């Protein structure tokens, strides 16, 4: 540690910043697509019909019960080649993060929706609203408020997990860290730098989420 080589960090700073933008972009795309998909999975899993519920239950089982790295390899090397060639690793990371977070988001949505008092839906139905209208105008707006903290945590998890993309050469933060290690044969500077960037991103997000939570709480 006596001779910390700042020059490596300075050399690689443009790549790290570019990587950070990719990390943010991939996680953001992952969580947004995950939210859309997750809502449908949550609704499917709440179906009164067992046979309708079944595929959604197993979707969630699969994506929560297998390692993300295995999912990434399956998607990158097995699934994506069916759709594109050559496979873009960024697309693979986004697809994996979306599908994976959808399973977690679905459970967050379901818990949020089921936490709303049954009387709310009953009152709305008694006024002539159909199921979709009740969901959209009465249940979801109230559930959403309660879902902000767990959704925020999911986003932070996703942001960290996107570092797995380095293994399939998606040029995000960790990828550039590994590249710097390869070029200079030094481990401390690049990996510490990578860790610091992730820390800055997750701490800023935590701060932003706390702020949002407070805003919504006082509304």
């Amino acid at each position, binding site marked *: 540690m006596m001779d910390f080589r700042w020059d490596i960090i300075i050399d690689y700073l443009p790549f790290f910043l570019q990587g950070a933008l990719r990390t943010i972009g991939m996680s953001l795309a992952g969580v947004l697509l995950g939210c859309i998909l997750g809502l449908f999975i949550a609704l499917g899993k709440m179906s009164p019909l067992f046979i309708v519920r079944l595929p959604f239950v197993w979707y969630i089982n699969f994506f929560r019960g297998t390692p993300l790295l295995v999912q990434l390899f399956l998607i990158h090397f097995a699934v994506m080649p069916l759709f594109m060639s050559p496979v873009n690793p960024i697309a693979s990371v986004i697809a994996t993060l979306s599908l994976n977070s959808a399973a977690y988001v679905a459970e967050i949505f379901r818990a949020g929706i089921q936490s709303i*008092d049954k*009387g*709310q839906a*009953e*009152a*709305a*139905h*008694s*006024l*002539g*609203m*159909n199921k979709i*209208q009740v969901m959209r*105008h*009465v249940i979801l*707006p*109230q559930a959403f*408020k309660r879902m902000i903290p767990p959704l925020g945590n999911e986003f932070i998890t996703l942001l960290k997990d996107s570092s797995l993309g380095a293994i399939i050469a998606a040029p995000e933060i960790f990828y550039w860290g590994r590249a710097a290690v390869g070029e200079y044969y030094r481990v401390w500077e690049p990996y510490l730098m990578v860790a610091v960037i992730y820390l800055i991103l997750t701490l800023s997000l935590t701060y932003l989420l706390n702020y949002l939570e407070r805003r919504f709480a006082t509304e």
Partner: protein
Amino acid sequence: MISVKNLKKSFGALEVLKDISIEIEPKEVVVVIGPSGSGKSTFLRCLNQIETITDGHVYIEGVDITDKKVDINKVREEVGMVFQQFNLFPHKTVLENITLPMSVVRKWNKQEAKTKAIALLEKVGLADKADVYPDSLSGGQKQRVAIARALGMGPKVMLFDEPTSALDPEMVGEVLEVMKQLAKEGMTMVVVTHEMGFAREVGDRVVFMDEGYIIEENEPEAIFGNPQHERTQSFLSKIL
């Protein structure tokens, strides 16, 4: 107006409504009384299919609402319901609580809905509360908003499930007053309540339920003054 034929309702193995038949005439005010757990709420909730019926039929204006081909949402527009726990939408203002179903279900435009909603708020004496959220209202005020909200759909029947049971005693009067006014205007009403004064004064008929059956029904004076059935007598002796 409402015709119930051999209505039965079970929750799993528990049979809550065993065989209920009753005819309710237009403009009639029917008060339902009975011990806790006798099935009063369940009966009321079967009248707008908030509970699905196990067996029997319910006709609203001649339409069999147990028929799968009937659009139950259309029927519910005609049948307003007021709950013990108010069930106002906490994320909407008082005004929005009333206009939401108008615009979502009836597809009225904003201005139309707002005008109608303000008129209803004036009717229940809460026009000055239009823009506050339900959280800041007292129980009595909440229930009056809930009544206004149900009236907004222009229902032909109103169902009340113990509308004053969750209220502090000093607020019961203001809610009953609104209900009396409604009855005077000729609204058909089915009211589950423990307010015997209201039953006497406003009710055209009192129905006594116990253990899933209608045990006895009659004009208020007759039920309270001269109950025929022993179970009615013992129930009334406990609460009067």
